[in-house]
């Protein structure tokens, strides 16, 4: 029952009995605010601490304890709003969302309901078929709940309140997404923007970024929205995509069978790869939202917002434009290089260190080729790269100025790994300088032709494939150091 991709490969469509359905997706992303302390208390937010060691009286909702807003978290939310090209609201209100659960100490979550801190905005997605604008409905600040642990004690549920009260930004998209690929691009772009801003580390393994996924389907071409189901708390892009594919097909099947889709909240079972009903609309909580009387409305002045605007770094879309203009690289290459802030920083540092005689093509190829492969292999991030941007720039310059061949460069690259060694030193110590003296190379080639007379004749008789054999022999005899371009020229002449 997997979805059938349509022929042009750009749209995600589901075909059943001559009906073609499209999927309408909206995301509610919960992004943990990068901040040392919680939204309404001074407790630490550090990940991975012993259970219940980062809990203040406020976080545990002791009698008489009161929330006090953390200004830093407010700034982070506003910065994120600016990064999403969104309207920042001068006045927003914290509300209480009331429900009982063991890991919700107050019996309510402090959130923003009617008046969020950030209003409408948008995000640009770079899809293979071109750019797509995804609308942002709103961004609001709220508290995270604690964690219920059901699998440690056979008879009891244990509660860890370390996460209780940690600041989250809920970023709600408009129902503008149409495929699992777009969801992938959207989450990555959102993550990228927030990492540029330093407002969320985007670490999905640690739960810093998770999403509720709203899915509905409709006949392609229709403008009405179908009944949606909300898939709660999905914590990886892959699972989001799997959940969407399952859920969209489930809904199409129901429609095709003439049944109605119930608006409901569902859970994605990652083991069985299916979504399951959690609660129906009738069972939906009545959260009894009302303004939290412990907190005054949050008011921010235009000056405050302007100050934050002036602190916003260059964001991925602008950086991409500049890379294309300034470095004359392709939009595709620029997209890859700006997608992660650390990659962009690394690239810019390589460019700077390459100096005047820089070769952008080499730089892009080495970073997206050799370096990415290395990082991928070692499963590390670029800011942990064993080869510094400075030394990679040197290596690229050695290729550019003909000191070494690309092939030798790969050998040197391997040698550099062991403690970020200067490639120049490796070249000198190992004597890997490229042989570019035509006389020396001629002597070498003469010798090879002499030793392989028969093959030389066969070549002259038309067996052109043998040219490669001679190149290989020459390179081998030179210990790989021979300038391949010169070898080619001389061989052509001599043969």
């Amino acid at each position: 029952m997997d979805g059938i991709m349509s022929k042009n490969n750009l749209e995600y469509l589901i075909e059943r009995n001559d009906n073609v359905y499209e999927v309408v997706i909206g995301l509610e992303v919960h992004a943990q605010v990068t901040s040392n302390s919680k939204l309404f208390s001074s407790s630490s937010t550090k990940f991975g601490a012993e259970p219940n060691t980062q809990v203040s009286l406020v976080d545990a909702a002791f009698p008489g304890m009161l929330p006090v807003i953390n200004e830093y978290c407010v700034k982070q939310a506003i910065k994120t709003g600016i990064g999403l090209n969104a309207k920042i609201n001068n006045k927003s209100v914290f509300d209480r969302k009331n429900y009982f659960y063991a890991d919700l100490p107050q019996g309510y979550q402090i959130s923003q309901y009617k008046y969020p801190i950030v209003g409408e905005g948008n995000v640009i997605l770079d899809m293979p078929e071109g750019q797509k604008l995804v609308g942002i409905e709103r961004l609001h600040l709220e508290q995270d709940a604690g964690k219920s642990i059901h699998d440690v004690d056979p008879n009891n549920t244990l509660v860890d309140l370390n996460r209780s009260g940690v600041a989250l930004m809920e970023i709600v998209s408009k129902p503008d997404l149409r495929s699992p690929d777009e969801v992938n691009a959207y989450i990555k772009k959102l993550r990228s923007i927030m990492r540029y801003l330093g407002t969320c580390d985007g670490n999905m393994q640690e739960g810093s970024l998770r999403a509720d996924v709203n899915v509905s389907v409709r006949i392609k071409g229709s403008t009405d929205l179908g009944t949606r189901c909300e898939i709660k708390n999905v914590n990886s892009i892959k699972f989001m995509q799997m959940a969407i594919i399952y859920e969209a097909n489930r809904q199409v099947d129901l429609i095709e069978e003439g049944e109605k889709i119930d608006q409901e909240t569902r859970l994605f079972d990652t083991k069985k790869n299916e979504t399951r009903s959690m609660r129906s609309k009738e069972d939906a909580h009545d959260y009894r939202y009302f303004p939290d009387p412990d907190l005054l409305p949050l008011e921010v002045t235009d000056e405050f917002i302007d100050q934050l605007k002036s602190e916003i770094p260059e964001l991925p879309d602008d950086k991409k434009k500049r890379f294309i203009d300034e470095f004359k690289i392709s939009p595709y290459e620029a997209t890859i290089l700006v997608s992660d802030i650390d990659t962009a920083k690394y690239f810019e540092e390589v460019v700077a260190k390459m100096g005047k005689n820089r070769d952008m093509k080499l730089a892009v190829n080495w970073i997206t080729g050799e370096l990415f492969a290395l990082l991928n292999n070692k499963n590390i991030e670029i800011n942990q790269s064993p080869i510094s941007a400075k030394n990679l720039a040197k290596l690229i310059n050695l290729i550019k100025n003909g000191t070494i061949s690309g092939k030798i460069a790969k050998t040197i690259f391997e040698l550099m790994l062991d403690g970020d060694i200067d490639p120049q030193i490796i070249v000198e110590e190992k004597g890997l300088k490229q042989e570019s003296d035509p006389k020396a190379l001629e002597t070498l080639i003469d010798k090879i032709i002499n030793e392989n007379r028969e093959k030389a004749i066969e070549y002259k008789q038309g067996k052109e494939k043998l040219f490669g054999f001679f190149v290989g022999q020459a390179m081998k005899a030179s210990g790989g150091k021979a300038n391949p371009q010169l070898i080619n020229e001389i061989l052509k002449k001599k043969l």
Partner: protein
Amino acid sequence: MTEITSLSLFELIKSIKEKKISSYEAAKSFVDRSEKSKKLNAYVTENFENCLKISKKFDSNPNFDLKLPGIPIAVKDLFCTNEVRTTAGSNILNNFVPNYESTVTQNIWNEGGILLGKLNCDEFAMGSSNETSFFGNVQNPIAKDLVPGGSSGGSSSALAANLTPVTIGTDTGGSIRQPASFTGTVGLKPTYGSCSRYGIVAFASSLDQAGPMSKDVKDSSILLEVISSFDKKDSTSIDFKRNNYSSELTRNIKGIKIGIPKEYRVDGMSDEIENLWKKGIEYAKDCGAEIIDISLPHTSYALPTYYIVAPAEASSNLARYDGVKYGLRSSGESLIDMYEKTRSEGFGEEVKRRIMIGTYVLSSGYYDAYYLKAQKVRQLIKQDFDQAYNKVDAILTPSTPSSAFKIGEKSNDPVSMYLNDIFTVPVNLAGLPGISIPAGTDKNNYPLGLQIIGKPFDEQTVLNIAYSMEEKINYKNNITDWWME
């Protein structure tokens, strides 16, 4: 010499500063009298031994620069006190011992006050007679089987019976002023935001305010000076310039304009109250005040508004008492079962009633009709006062529509109980300062109080008017110590 326990706070401080009596002697007198007054049931938790110990320590190295040098003080059991059980009058917090201190009580200890004990109150401050307390009824020292008012009923009883020189209460809809009125004592509810709510068990956050209760107006000014402070731990605390209320206290109120709101002349108001009010107006005139008739047109909506807003906030504020983290936990088959049993056994009838009302008015489909509308009316009530204060400096009203009633008389009739707050709730809804001072008695010789309402942050004028009228009224409680063992 007068008994130590019948001294006013001002006199007691003076005596201690002049070394006529020691802190220990003072503490011992109040402890002894409290020990003999168990019939009043004013205390939930006694801190007597500790109090005596600390008073001795004070005497060994006294600091007379403090505002409350070695003064023993019992406080309402709604204030969290470090290492001393804090129950809020509820079974659900029966065993709760905080490891932190409320800002208001901390301010008192910082100025040399010593905790004498925790005083009974209506459960979570929900009540007007102290009859909703899990720890039983409190007797009004004025007469046997008379309620002391509520919710700060233990406080008013202990104060009137001279078990503590002064005390502090909390006032959400009249919980300081009404019990003060019922016991012939003085009770002041400051402007919302004057006293920090940090560490006070919350009832209705947008209305709750701590305040002093005392035998006379001067004592309230001394205590207000100590407890009123800007506190960053309470986001609704307000950073305004606070007076030295006691040293700026004056009886010169010449030319002050006092408004008399016609809407407070409610249907069925007894002649006794009507006459008391008239007498009050004459006293105010005698003091040099100018009397001006004013209108507060939305007054009749105050009580229904209050009984939507307060339960709504309470229903949410009390959600934290779920048996998971602290306090009472009943065993249950599942989480939901545990919640239901804990809260069924932990909360009393009145608290449950208000949680249900509050839950109802916030429910989807009812929110706009009740909660939202109530918030709009609340704004109108505020505007009434704003407009009145263009013409007058303060407002004079009766504190309550009747004197203290018998225990059990109204406990089965919540609406008639709620009507007790009719003159006090508008003040909470508008966040204004208000004081109740004893002004006379009814036919049974039970005390009756008058209320003076001021402009926001203008506690000084309220205190000055009260101080001036107090002298003219010259009220004295006639207490026979009938309960003493």
